[in-house]
């Protein structure tokens, strides 16, 4: 279990050991959705809002 800093509020975000790139973590402090950009060391960024769309 490691920790990282929320890019929105600066609060601590707990990270599980099976963290994956692309995973979305909710900040427990401010509720922001954070995307795991890199795993080792962990890098978080605000997860992009993406409209739901589908193809064929």
């Amino acid at each position, binding site marked *: 279990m490691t920790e990282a800093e929320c890019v929105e509020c600066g609060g601590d975000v707990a990270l599980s050991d099976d963290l*994956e790139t*692309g*995973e*979305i973590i909710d900040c427990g402090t401010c509720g922001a*959705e954070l*995307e795991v950009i890199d795993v080792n060391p962990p890098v978080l960024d605000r*997860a*992009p809002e*993406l*409209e*739901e*769309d*589908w*193809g*064929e």
Partner: protein
Amino acid sequence: MTNGYTREELLAAHDDLIDASASDCLYTDGGEPREPPVVVKIGGARAVEPEGAVQDIAHLVANGRKVVVVHGGSTAVDETLEELGEEPTYVETPSGVSGRFTDERTMEVFTMVMPGKLNTELTATLRGAGVDALGLSGVDGGLLTGKRKSAVRVVEDGKKKIKRGDHSGKITDVNTQLLETLLDGGYTPVATVPMLADDGVPVNADADRAAAAIAGALGAELVVLTDVEGVYEDIDDPESLIASAATPAEFEAVKNAAEGFMTKKVMAATEALEGGAAKVIVADANVRDPITTALNGGG
């Protein structure tokens, strides 16, 4: 191709059609028909098996109606992927909708199957029925364009994730001038996806929504042919069929009733109406003259 009709049946159907819409259909004075064009969406879940639709389209066109055909063919894409030893990738979105994840290789196979195999086949079949059909993908002449979406939100093993490398997009513009030029020239455009994204890349888009975008842009009547008989208020009660809706408000009721894969069709129908389509009908593909029947409001 088998015709499936005797000459007498064709003539009778022809008379019916003229009777049904005599006030706004044929003009012996050479005037233009005042009816809006018809956008017919065929194929989908069970690939393209359009025999009934083909005859009906030929009939409509022979009566001077302007028709744009749109087709999908997702199943055929999966079949070809499997023949090539590739695994089709489907992902679940946060709202529970299942959708294809289209990586670069899948996109390549997608263009082989959609504008390649299926569109050529359907265009040839329509031409065989006397329709001056002309196949187009959304890339051709910039027919279907919009924003690229290379990342999607998915749910995998219960985790929310951003998945990148997707080749999909959202259609925001239709080249109606191209369609009108072709329709005025007597051609019947046979359109399919991919669309062309704003980064210049051909990408996946839902064929129902492509048909909706085209119908909206042309102010056309949209007939979406499916394997099921429309949208049901109660999906287990065949009596609860909602045959058509003419306004976004009416469609709100349909929307609430729709379940499963019909969600996409209803969403597309809503988009068509909001985009300017004159009318949207989701109808059973497996009846004789499915389009004429749908347009004449019954079965």
